[in-house]
């Protein structure tokens, strides 16, 4: 069975400092992994996705994530936080072997950015 764990429910950084949002996954198969972002009162938007190509994935707005099979991790990073990055971030793993096309969501990490 697939699962995903976001290790922090809240992360607070200062503007201009690096961002690290941590995600571990569990999967019997080679997974597809995603990061989505949700700004207040908005729907979810895809930041980036890993689908067994390059292990370092670049996304929108300067975010990137690295797939590490040995650590079963897919952490999201950004070198320099901006105020507009304040949002909730979801790490997501695809479901294999059952209902194709379904996703399993982590519980989310709320990112605060201080001026």
């Amino acid at each position, binding site marked *: 069975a697939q699962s995903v764990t976001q290790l922090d429910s809240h992360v607070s950084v200062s503007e201009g400092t690096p961002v690290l949002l941590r995600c571990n996954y569990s999967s019997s198969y080679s997974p597809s992994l995603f990061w989505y972002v949700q700004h207040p009162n908005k*729907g979810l938007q895809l930041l980036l996705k890993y689908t067994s190509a390059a292990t370092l994935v670049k996304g929108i707005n300067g975010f990137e994530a690295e797939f590490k099979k040995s650590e079963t991790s897919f952490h999201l990073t950004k070198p320099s936080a901006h105020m507009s990055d304040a949002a909730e971030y979801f790490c997501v793993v695809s479901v294999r072997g059952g209902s194709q096309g379904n996703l399993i*969501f982590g519980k989310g990490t709320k990112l605060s950015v201080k001026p």
Partner: protein
Amino acid sequence: DVKVTQSSRYLVKRTGEKVFLECVQDMDHENMFWYRQDPGLGLRLIYFSYDVKMKEKGDIPEGYSVSREKKERFSLILESASTNQTSMYLCASSFLRGGNNEQFFGPGTRLTVL
């Protein structure tokens, strides 16, 4: 751009009422999904559909039903609303089967049941 629209941003209903939440996508996607989102619980799948008139239960289908009469439209129905169904409801769609296809989300409907 893919667009997924939901009929209401905010809804307030009374306990026992029948509630319809509508979702429309404009990209000819086969797959459509309904989730509910609650603080600290992330998104949980209620129902999904891979084709017209086809539906499958997700993780938390109790108290809900769905309808997909046309490919672009997927409706979530609360037969008799209860206070524990107060939540944010998100609709999504995706192209084809396969876990590496991203889902596109609507803006959400915040439902309050009094």
